[in-house]
């Protein structure tokens, strides 16, 4: 075996090809697994050309009126730009239409037009992220004519954007805690709800990074439409990402069987089956957010809104079961696994059948087997089944 594996030393060309192929494979592998970052642009740090631009553009009150009546600020703060992720690239790498002074005439009619004219340049270096945005709900809204829809520069100010990731490509902690405020620029009403929720409060008041920010449920660049049937059907899995993870939940004493107990009940069974069998078909059976809220999720022991209080739970039940009365909420076992303490009737019924089923089937099986054996013996003997 060993002999066969040895590279024949007589053929140096083969060795070369082998080594070359190995290097090629390895480099392809590295390229494939390397985190998606901006592809490098050849540019020198603090390029003198940038300084030329900043001679004018560092002026704090540098601005010009737009045809729409708005005022376009043209100030670029040198300090902030130097601290940004883009400090190493030159102004004209993005502002490709500008090569001299005076600059070409601005064709944009209003402030929004300026951003809309420029943002596609981001794909030059950030092709992966840009391509992801093409599938996003923002891009769809933009394509449908809604110019308010977020584009690259709305979340990432190109002149100030600091590095968001470490060398491994994972988000820096301070970046993570700021995400909701970025989204809040356009979704401030939702942010206000989030800020009051159990997750948002933990993030903003305690800087707790275990809680989800916007992107943990909605994704980053390929943010999909959260109002579709398919998003709703798979939303329990989103919650379950953290809520079935004991390493996070144990810290807060939260049960990790919330998904299992949900799926085991009528509602969860239906939703799970819809999700696997007809993911685009809507079902009106509740998902996590139907009872717990979406951005305004409260602790279950919240003194005002907590679902632990029967009247709060009943009110939730009644959104779908309008005729439900005070006993009805107990038909849902509140994510408990039946035990002698919680839902004892269910526990003892299940226990009864654990013994009753084998208690009936066991003797039946013994009798059937004895009957088979007897018949086989008699057949061999040629005797009659008396």
């Amino acid at each position, binding site marked *: 075996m060993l002999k066969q594996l040895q590279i024949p030393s007589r053929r140096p060309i083969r060795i070369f090809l082998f080594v070359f192929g190995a290097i090629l494979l390895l480099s392809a592998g590295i390229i494939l697994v390397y985190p998606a970052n901006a592809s490098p642009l050849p540019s020198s740090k603090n390029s003198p050309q940038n300084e030329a631009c900043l001679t004018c553009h560092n002026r*704090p*009150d540098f*601005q010009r009126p737009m045809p729409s009546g708005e*005022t376009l*600020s*043209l*100030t670029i*703060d040198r300090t902030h*730009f130097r601290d940004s992720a883009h400090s190493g690239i030159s102004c004209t790498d993005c502002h490709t239409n500008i090569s001299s002074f005076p600059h070409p005439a601005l064709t944009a009619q209003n*402030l929004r037009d300026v951003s809309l004219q420029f943002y596609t340049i981001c794909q030059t270096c950030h092709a992966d992220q840009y391509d992801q945005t093409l599938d996003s709900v923002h891009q769809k809204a933009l394509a449908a004519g809604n110019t308010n829809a977020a584009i690259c520069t709305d979340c990432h*100010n*190109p002149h*100030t*954007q600091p590095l968001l990731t470490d060398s491994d490509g994972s988000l820096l902690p*301070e970046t993570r805690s*700021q995400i909701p*405020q970025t989204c*809040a*620029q*356009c*979704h*401030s*009403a*939702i942010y206000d*709800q989030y800020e009051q929720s159990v997750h948002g409060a933990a993030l903003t008041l305690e800087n707790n990074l275990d809680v989800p920010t916007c992107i943990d449920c909605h994704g980053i660049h390929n943010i999909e439409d959260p109002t579709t049937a398919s998003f709703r059907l798979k939303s329990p899995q989103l919650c379950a990402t953290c809520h079935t993870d004991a390493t996070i939940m144990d810290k807060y004493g939260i049960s990790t069987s919330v998904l299992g107990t949900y799926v085991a*009940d009528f509602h969860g*069974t*239906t939703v799970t*089956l*819809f999700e*696997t*069998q*007809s993911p685009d078909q809507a079902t*009106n059976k509740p*998902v996590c957010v139907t009872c717990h809220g*979406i951005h305004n999720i409260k602790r279950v022991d919240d003194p005002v809104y907590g679902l632990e209080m029967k009247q709060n739970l009943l009110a939730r039940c009644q959104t779908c*079961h309008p*005729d439900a*009365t005070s*006993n*009805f*909420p*107990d*038909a849902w076992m509140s994510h408990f696994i039946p035990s002698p303490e919680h*839902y004892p*009737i*269910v526990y003892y*019924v299940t226990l009864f*059948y654990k013994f*009753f089923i084998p208690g*009936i*089937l066991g003797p*039946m*099986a013994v*009798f059937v087997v*004895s*009957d088979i054996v007897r*018949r086989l013996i008699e057949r061999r003997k040629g005797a009659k*089944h*008396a």
Partner: protein
Amino acid sequence: MSKTITKPKSAPEARKPVASRKAQAGQTKKDRYYQRFHWTQQIAHALLLSSFTLLGITGLPQKYPLSSWGQFLIGAFGGIETTRTIHHIAAVILMLLSIYHILDVGYKIFVRRVRLTMLPGVKDIKDALQSFSYNLGIAKKRPQMGRYTFEEKMEYWALVWGTAIMGITGFLMWNPIASTGLLPGEIIPAAKAAHGGEALLAVAAIILWHLYGVHIKRFNKSMFTGKLSENEMLHEHPLELADIKAGISERPVDPKTLRKRQIIYWPVAGILALIMLFGVYGFVRVEKTAITTLPLEEDSVPVYVPQTPTPPPTITPTQGSGAFLLASDTPIAYLPNGEEDGLTIAADSLDAGKLMLSKFTHQQPGQFAVSELAAVKD
């Protein structure tokens, strides 16, 4: 053994030997045939067979919805909602069949006063033990049994018990709001547990006991032909055969008495039937359990609510404090810390211009809540 899930005989002529074609062809008396099941019983059995099977194959996947076979079956029926509908339809068929059976048995008991051959007794326990001993080689002889063997009685009463449990627990799950109006809410998941456990028991028992007893051990065709041969009768139901031969298997009623009893029974049965049918109607229609539209789970806030002031993309506050120059609440310039003091606002060039002082605890524009904007200077 033959089907146990049938009712005692109904037609008076049922147990008389039937002259089969073979018998007419001059064969021995071994080939004489005896009527075992009336045609109404055969139809009832066919309905039971179909509804039970449907209930089983639409019900068990609901007990194991995450299994691959369960999902396959649910998909084959057209999804979980359709599977549930089929299950409900089959349940109604079984309920109607049960009502028919109750009235039929009532007629036999109160009008014809037949022998109650399906009632279990001490003899059945003895027969079961003797059969088992025989199988083990201890007893020399198999027990001699009557019209219904202990195996058949066991299956019949298991079916009665099972149908009752399934009916009650099924009602609770089908009508949770009506049920929890009287009972604790916990009864619903308890009913689900019992319904699932009982289902498993019923299907397993049918496969183990019924399938072995009448199909594998020896294919007993009497439920489909309605007849058993004398040879089979001698082997399986010798005591019944003896009774038939002795002419005591029947209890003939004279037409006058029969008529008198019928006059009493039919109105009573009619009222009972109405009550039970009304019960089935209630089963299906008593409550509207849930809304049929999608539940309202919107945040009840509009999605697009830009912050005011909207931070422009060119200005860049980081940590520290600074000021926004506002024109009609739109920031048009950012002044780093300290510089705002030296700024003069040309009142003629900026309509309603004002200066907004800000403390920035975050690194990017827009990353401050409105509450963080410290002061507004005119």
